[in-house]
């Protein structure tokens, strides 16, 4: 009850922090999609490159976020961005690469060989095959990757409050430093609720983007 009262009293701040959080993750995953999807498509052409890229992306995900922020502070300090927005976005961008690249790669690779052959047989060029057949068929699985990246990084972004990036993590870090369970719990609950809501919204978007003729084939990953 006390917590609920606290949330109501700080509603405006809660909203501001939530929007900050969404924009941080949104910008980072947005950029990650723009880089990850082309990389995922590109590596379908070369198995060795695919292995290398997926390996590197997997390693990046194993780096603890606190460590990653720590590494970036001296590097980004060169351009005066050692803490705050920039390192937070870059960290999320890096973490997002694995689910997006891997899902894109898998989806394009798993397009039915018969459809590939049909697309070649009717005389489509490589670009036409990608644009007209392979990417539309891969969209559900690529979107599932984007969803994974978003949900994963809503959590990561909470930690970015320690390097001054803002967002809902601020409640948590202050809750800890000020020994204030109200702030701590509010932050934690808000992060979880946000993750769930965003996941469902993206699922709805994924369904809309799935080509009509293949609704039954949509991925739930």
């Amino acid at each position, binding site marked *: 009850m006390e917590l609920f009262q606290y949330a109501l009293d700080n509603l405006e701040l809660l909203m501001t922090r939530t929007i900050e959080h969404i924009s941080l993750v949104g910008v980072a995953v947005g950029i990650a999609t723009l880089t990850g999807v082309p990389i995922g498509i590109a590596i379908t052409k070369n198995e060795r490159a695919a292995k290398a890229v997926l390996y590197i992306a997997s390693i990046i995900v194993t780096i603890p976020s606190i460590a990653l922020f720590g590494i970036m502070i001296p590097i980004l300090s060169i351009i005066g961005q050692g803490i705050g927005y920039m390192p937070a976005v870059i960290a999320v961008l890096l973490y997002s690469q694995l689910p997006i690249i891997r899902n894109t790669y898998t989806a394009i690779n798993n397009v039915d060989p018969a*459809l590939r*052959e*049909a697309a070649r*047989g009717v005389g489509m*060029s490589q670009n036409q095959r990608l644009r007209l057949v392979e990417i539309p068929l891969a969209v559900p699985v690529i979107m599932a990757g984007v969803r994974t990246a978003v949900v994963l990084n809503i959590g990561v972004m909470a930690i970015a409050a320690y390097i001054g990036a803002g967002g809902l993590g601020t409640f948590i870090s202050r809750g800890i430093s000020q020994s204030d369970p109200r702030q701590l719990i509010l932050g934690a609950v808000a992060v979880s609720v946000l993750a769930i809501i965003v996941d469902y919204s993206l699922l709805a978007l994924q369904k809309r983007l799935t080509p009509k*003729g293949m609704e039954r084939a949509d991925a739930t990953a």
Partner: protein
Amino acid sequence: MIRLDNLTKVFDTPKGAVTAADHISMEVPSGEICILLGPSGCGKTTTLKMINRIIRPTSGKVFINGEDTTSLDTQDLRRSIGYVIQQIGLFPNMTIEENITVVPKLLGWDKAKYRERAREMMRMIALEPDAFLKRYPSELSGGQQQRIGVARALAADPPVMLMDEPFGAIDPINRAVIQDEFLKMQQDLKKTIMFVSHDIDEAIKMGDRIAIFRAGKLVQYSEPDELLAAPKDDFVESFLGEDRALKRLNLVKVRDLASEEIGLVRPDDTLDAALTRIEEYGYQNSIVMVNDKRQPVGIVNAAVARTTKGHCRDHFQSVPVVVSLDDDLRKVASLMFANDMTWVPCVDDDGRIVGQITQRAITHHLGSRYRTHSRDDTTLDAAASLSSNDKE
């Protein structure tokens, strides 16, 4: 016209080089269907796919209508060749209309023209355009999907079509229907078609010519009747099956073996006259009675004619069976067995008697080309076989 000149494909595998197609040279005349037939791994599909470069030839050339395709751009080449595959391969993200018009669009037709073409194709494959064009492939049955697959291949009106076991994934009943529909379409379209199959019955039904492959080599390339009558070696013979004589029945029409000589009686003839004619023509059991238009109205039994006085019109039985000149011998043989007859009267389109076909004529036709195994004896035609044949 499709001509293959020493077309060869060697695959590099971990176990060493494998020659999938070994110097294949053959020619399919314009407007004909050539079936590439053989067991799995014999090189028939590899050969087909080298024509539109789905598989790149190691060496050799492909000529289409006299033109060497080596110099053509791969995409241009493929757009000028209809391609149908066993897995159908309709694009699930596209509507039926988008699937059918994919090649016309790639060729840059304008919208009105390709949309009209889609409707035209739907009518050709006997599917209602308004009911189907806006639907997606997943909403259609397998048979309907493969009809669309054929329509997609034909949409840009290519002179040449390649079909890789196109009806292999369809249930037997629908397969027969689609085969018939396709043959009917082909009568008007007159495409030059290469068609891979592993089904000897399909090959005989669909093919103007059949090419038998084994271990990457073209073993025999003949017309179906020639193939069944004179298999080149033991492999071809065993591949065709021990019932290959019966399979030939499908290929021969009544027209080819019918004799114009047939003894008939009229309703006004006396039974004595009927008996005389039965003996004159050497029939054992009965004779056909016809009306003024030469349409069969009954048969008069020899046993009745011997023991009874009177006119044919009062002592006849119904005609068991007649066959049309365009029926195949398989149907005739079946009717003969079912009705315990050694001959069947043949009628034209108006139902008038034009002759008869006898069991002797059929067995003689089939047997005459088996006894020798050589091509020299195959000139024996239907007329010759009939003239030496006793009437029954």
